[in-house]
């Protein structure tokens, strides 16, 4: 079948990743098609996301960037009528063929709006993934809670009120709590779907810092509508337009010498 043919990626020919040609591939997306009912959103996307980097996905709204990221841990399927076809290789397995529950433990996700569990305390929120999956060892849970909160740069702010409700925190803190919650199950990949769109600039800054810090431990993919954010946090950027991947390469190169006219138009603000 045509769609199964591995397609060489355009920027690989140019060799943009001269400095890290050795970087391993974490996720390999082949001819990914997805949509809702009969309406296609992704029209055959090919992409190789490198391990332990931050990759940003940008593009005008409706371009399919959220759908793409939601396919990576199959949250896309949680929407009734959603369709998805193609190949997402993750550690040698096709993510579309394994149990989504197991997949999601390895590919965590943080959403647009902070969504801590309203009935749980801060500590319970962080521990939720472990506890709901049957971990009972209290000492190990406490240790994971602290470690995850530290990685999410939230520990110092909440260490004295771990038993306070998670929804009592500020918006920015809630979002970092959600990041800590996702990190607690130790995923290999962390997906963030416009995580700062509901936050103020200071809270956004904190989250950007922590993303840069955690990237040497896991692979980060972030969807953002904010090009400055992409430029600040990511090493690689994907530019999407109308369900297709237009350009993919080193962030610093894409923002200085975009290869495609459409990318140039977008980053210079000429449309959208």
């Amino acid at each position, binding site marked *: 079948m045509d769609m199964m043919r591995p397609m060489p990626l355009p920027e690989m020919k140019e060799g943009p990743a001269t400095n890290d040609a050795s970087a391993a591939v974490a996720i390999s997306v082949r001819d990914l098609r997805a949509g809702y009912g009969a309406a296609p959103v992704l029209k055959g996307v090919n992409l190789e996301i490198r391990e332990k980097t931050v990759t940003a996905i940008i593009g005008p709204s409706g371009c399919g960037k959220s759908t793409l990221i939601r396919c990576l841990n199959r949250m896309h399927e949680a929407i009734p009528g959603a369709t998805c076809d193609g190949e997402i290789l993750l550690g040698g397995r096709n993510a579309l063929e394994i149990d989504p*529950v197991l997949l*999601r433990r390895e590919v965590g996700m943080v*959403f647009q709006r902070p969504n801590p569990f309203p009935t749980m305390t801060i500590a319970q929120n962080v521990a939720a993934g472990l506890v709901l999956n049957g971990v009972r060892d209290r000492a190990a849970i406490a240790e994971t809670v602290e470690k995850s909160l530290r990685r999410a740069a939230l520990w110092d702010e909440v260490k004295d009120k771990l038993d306070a409700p998670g929804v009592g925190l500020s918006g920015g803190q809630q979002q970092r709590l959600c990041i800590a919650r996702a990190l607690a199950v130790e995923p290999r990949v962390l997906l963030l779907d416009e995580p700062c769109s509901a936050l103020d600039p200071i809270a956004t800054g904190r989250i950007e810092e922590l993303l840069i810090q955690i990237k040497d431990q896991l692979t980060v993919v972030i969807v953002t509508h904010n090009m400055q954010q992409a430029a600040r946090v990511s090493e690689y950027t994907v530019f999407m337009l109308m369900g297709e991947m237009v350009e993919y390469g080193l962030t610093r190169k894409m923002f200085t010498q975009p290869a495609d006219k459409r990318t140039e138009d977008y980053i210079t603000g000429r449309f959208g």
Partner: protein
Amino acid sequence: MNDALYARRKKVNALMFALTAVCAAVASGTLLAILGYIAWQGASSLSWAFLTNMPKPLGEHGGGIANSIVGSAKVVGLAGLMGIPVGVLAGVYLAEYGRGKYAFAVRYAADVMNGVPSIVVGLFAYALIVHPMKKFSALSGSVALAFIMVPIVLRNTEEFLRLVPGTIREAALALGVPRWKVTLFVILPTAGRGILTGALLALARVAGETAPLIFTAFGNRFADNGWLNPIATLPHTIFTYAISPYEDWHNQAWAAALILMLFVLLINVTARVWLRPSSGAPH
């Protein structure tokens, strides 16, 4: 002439709104009138002894309604134990998987059961339990009340579960938690307050039901002895005493009505206050 017409229109306006104010006063004043009258009539016969003593034999003055209070607690309690879990879990089913034909049929059945008069539900419990066993029983009364509770609890549960934002479900699913655990341990507790309040209100509702108990729990002037024998309940005692020819029993009916009313009011007011700060779901 135009002025005259306008003056007339203004008069009609004022008159009609005065009338609607009277309607509102009647509608809301009725409750106060009822509460006031029951308190006035019932308070004089109310005492600690009335609550803790058994009824006296026919013809003797005095006695209490201890057996009715215990009986109501037992019958309503068992009804809750049967009706609330069924209603909540069926509600979870409708909220989580409620799209197909089966769910439509269940929803329709719940609507029908909700509209069936309570006396007809009593008939059902009679045909189901009393008639085959040839005996009135506490159990049959509980079953009747449980059938009344189930559709109420079910629709309430479904409604509150639907209020839980999809983002909460997404967050839990994205942690790699299986769906049944997400539903049971994340979604259900999030709607917990609303569901619990609905269950409480359903309990208060059936605690005041009389009609389905007349030929199921039946009533009993003696200490209750087990689930398979007739049992006294508060509303049924109020009914029997009220239609009796004895002055003393009339007074006792008022006092018992005061107890029942206070219980029902307490639950209703608590439920409202409790639900107000957040409607069971986060904003």
